[in-house]
């Protein structure tokens, strides 16, 4: 796996992440379409996900929770907006209460996964995430993501470097 590119656009609150995998698009599509495979990679470190529902049709819903290191649970949902397997999946990803009901006051991340077959048999995955607000990120950071965080600063660091 090679991370090709990460573009963070502060103006449109969008991050576009592109990585190359050594597998066909059909195979990579399975890791999203199959809930048992999806839960192996969706959660942040130390927060494995469990999908209790995964309905990959337009208008369908997925429900999941992530289990934290101290036994706490963080619930989430997907609302599927586009399915065009094995090339494109778009969904809104949001937070839910302990009963799995969406929390409207919490932010939503509009996510788009695109798969592209590469010559030579590999696949290119593009994950585009658009945030309704930084609160979604705050939530993820609160779940211990600051551990092992590396500096990958774009524009501000570049400007700071120029100035020194």
């Amino acid at each position, binding site marked *: *796996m090679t*991370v090709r590119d*990460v573009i*963070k656009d*502060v*103006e449109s*609150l969008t*991050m576009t*992440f592109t*990585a190359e*995998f*050594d*597998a066909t698009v059909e*195979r*990579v599509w399975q*890791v999203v379409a199959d809930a048992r*495979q999806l839960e*192996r*990679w*969706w959660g*942040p*470190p130390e927060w494995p996900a469990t999908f209790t529902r995964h309905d990959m049709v337009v208008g369908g819903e997925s429900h999941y929770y992530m289990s934290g290191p101290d036994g706490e649970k963080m619930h989430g949902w997907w609302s599927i907006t586009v399915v065009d397997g094995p090339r494109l999946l778009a969904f809104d990803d949001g937070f839910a209460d302990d009963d799995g009901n969406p929390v409207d006051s919490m*932010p939503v991340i509009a996510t788009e996964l695109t798969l592209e077959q590469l010559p030579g048999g590999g696949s290119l*995955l593009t*994950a585009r*995430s658009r945030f*309704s*607000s*930084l*609160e979604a*990120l*705050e939530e*993820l*950071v*609160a779940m211990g*993501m*600051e551990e*092992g*965080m*590396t*500096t*990958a*600063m774009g*524009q*501000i*660091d570049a*400007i*700071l470097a120029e*100035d020194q």
Partner: protein
Amino acid sequence: MALLSDADVDAIFHALADRTRRDIIVRVAVREQSVSALAERYAMSFAAVQKHVAVLQRASLVTKTKRGREQIVHANLVTVARARDLLDSYEQLWRHRAAQIDKLLGEATSDTSLSATPPHPTPTKGTS
């Protein structure tokens, strides 16, 4: 840690989206400056620079104090660092996810004859 409100976040992103405003933050981070000193650096009016400073102020990225007739602009680096860290964190999440997918792709094979072979050979002891 305190969560930022939607409005806070919008203000931060709006503020950082402009090159002049990013430049102002960098300059006042190095050393506090008056609005008029900043205005001399840019090819725009004092009022325009003051407007940029106001946007930064609303996003809590800078603070402004009065010193005599001058308005002095200071950087609030805590907020700047916070916005930056959050985007970096999200990148790290996707790096983690991609690594997990890769692991999954490597181990899950439909060919059962292959899965009979252990992935790593058992290490053998050297001569005793």
